[in-house]
């Protein structure tokens, strides 16, 4: 079995223990780091597939670690933060993290997030090998070349902004994109007044591509943080 290596960066022993035990039961290999320096070193030397990073490390700021790693790696980074610090999460995501977990988290949630990250690794690798001009995710298909979108093979009409939004989310499937990031990529500015508009556009987009808009399968909303395109299992 392919022993996927996961780097766990957490200074609190019981939580680190919990995470590592969980990984073992799922058949993953794990590396442990207690400080930021150790984490960066291990990330460079052992090349894990995914990094789990606690934001409350004693020696280095989590955001700094992310920035350092991002200079030479695009491995998915999942940050773990305490419940009340929304700002920390958003900062980490803007710096390059892919996803976040809030303490206290359940094991199921943790494993689900991990799977999303691993799927992203796979698709990143595939993307590098084969330059796709088509995106396929469950019933959703995007033909980049023709700029057409299909749901269940039926064409869907999107406005230019909705199309750009969808493509941005699709290119970053599995990664949580912050409001700021999306606004910057699509509109080029991050005026606070634009965030409500973004919500409205997202809602409109969801209505067009989700089979049940009130229970979204593709586009996940993360309140106070941003949005994410999920890879849907093929039925």
């Amino acid at each position, binding site marked *: 079995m392919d022993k996927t290596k996961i780097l766990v960066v957490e200074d609190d022993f019981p939580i680190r223990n919990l995470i590592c035990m969980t990984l073992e039961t799922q058949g993953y290999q794990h590396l442990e780091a207690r400080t930021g320096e150790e984490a960066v070193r291990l990330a460079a030397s052992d090349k894990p597939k995914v990094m789990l990073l606690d934001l409350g490390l004693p020696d280095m700021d989590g955001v700094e670690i992310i920035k350092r790693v991002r200079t030479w790696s695009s491995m998915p980074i999942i940050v773990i933060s305490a419940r009340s610090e929304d700002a920390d999460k958003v900062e980490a995501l803007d710096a390059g993290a892919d996803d976040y977990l809030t303490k*206290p988290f359940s094991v199921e949630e943790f494993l689900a997030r991990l799977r999303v990250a691993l799927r992203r690794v796979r698709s990143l690798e595939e993307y590098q090998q084969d330059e796709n001009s088509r995106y396929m995710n469950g019933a959703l298909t995007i033909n980049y070349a023709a700029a057409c979108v299909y749901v269940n093979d039926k064409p869907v009409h999107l406005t230019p902004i909705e199309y750009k939004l969808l493509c941005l989310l699709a290119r970053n499937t599995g990664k949580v994109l912050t409001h700021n990031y999306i606004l910057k990529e699509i509109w080029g500015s991050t005026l606070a007044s634009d965030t409500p508009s973004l919500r409205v556009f997202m809602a*409109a987009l969801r209505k067009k591509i989700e089979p049940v808009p*009130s229970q*979204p399968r593709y586009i996940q909303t993360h*309140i106070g943080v941003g949005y994410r395109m999920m890879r849907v299992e093929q039925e």
Partner: protein
Amino acid sequence: MKMTGIRLSWTGLLKAAVLLAAATVGGLAFQQLGLASANILMIYILCVQLIALWSGGWLYAALSSFAGMILYNYFFTEPRFTLRVYDPDYPMTFIVMVAVSFITTALTLRIKNQAAEADERAYRTGVLLETSEKLQKVERTGEILRTAAEQLYKLSGCPAAVYEPDGQGGLRLTRIYPESAGERAVPEQLEDLRALYWVWENNRCAGRSTKRFPEADALYLAIGGREHALAVIGLSLSEKISEKRGKGPVERNLLLAVADQCGLALEKEKLNREKQEAEVQAQKESLRANLLRSISHDLRTPLTSISGNAGILLESAASLGEKQKETLYKNIKEDAGWLISLVENLLSITRMEEGALTLHLETELVEDVIQEAVKHLDSRAKEREISWETEEELLLARMDARLIVQVLVNILNNAVRYTPPGSHIRLRVGREGKRILWEIADDGPGIAPEDQEKIFEIFYTGGNVGSDGRRGLGLGLALCRAIVMAHGGQIGVRPASPHGAVFWFTLQSAEVQYNG
């Protein structure tokens, strides 16, 4: 007998001369009419009184007495128009006349002075009374000191300068009364500074006209209570003024009396302020004490349960069946979940009570918020029929999303907890005028009418036990109310028919320009 300086002025002498001349003319007239000489004597005596009153000087009166006597001698005694007298009784008459003049003059002057003094006293009492009345009306330190300066100025005629503590152990000038006095009111010399700080530290008066620092330009009065001074007022005495009013002990006592009145008013105001702060502090302490009591009492139960279950699993895992073990695991997980939401509520409520919670208002999609809330419900929620709908698509409201999610979670969890399995819980959000109305309706047993107002109070649980057999801390709804009110909205509950309850709250709606 009060003497007013030994000065002679030409006007005074002229006044005396005129009066004496008039008296002489009158006397001559009397003589022509044939009236007795005694009457003429009276005229001169009267004249001397008038001179004393008019010129206000004892010296004039004395001189006039002699002058009158000489005039009478000259004009009216035999032989007339000479200074010789024949009648041997007349020397005695003259002596008596002069004596009477002196004495009556002295008495007259005394009465005049006393009347003036009485006026002065009445004026000062009036000022004291006025001070007292004014102080009753004002409340703030600034106004009290302004009144003090005003009244002291009225009493003394000297411009007053108010010095207040600057918060760093020193004093600074905060006010001058009257404002037109400007520079005159603020002396600059070292002696004044010394006097000023001495007064501040010792809560007594010093400066000009006192034994301490008499070289200073101003008189410094401490305004304060019995313990220590709260402010200092300096009265700039200029040469002219001090001579005019005379800063004797009587004067100063009155100034001190006014200063004391103001000092008492200041002290009273300070004590009031301290009392209010103490009350607020006491409230905070009592809330903290309540919280600690509740926490230690109500958190122990789930903790005991978790600890106990884990203990059994550790000790007797071998002798337990799979089913039993699973029940224990489930219990541990549920207790932990209960604790987690409890701690979350506790944290939020302490932050709100301390005023440390800042609202991050954003325009949010109602749907997004509902979906987030539903993710965080109790596991028991699966056994209820929960549904939600928004009246119109793209309903937007201004809110702090995380807090409103907590409100929804609390209300929904309550609905889950206090209704039997299989109950229906329906969440509906719609527009009502300028507001967004959120309603959570259940068809459970409902809320007793007497509890409907009280359930939003902190720590109130109404003795109700939830379907999980556990009482809450009574925080959930109190927190909901605090959050909704901080958003400027309202919250409440009403009965549903045929049975159940409808919890509702309102938030501000928001509009957004949508350019596809």
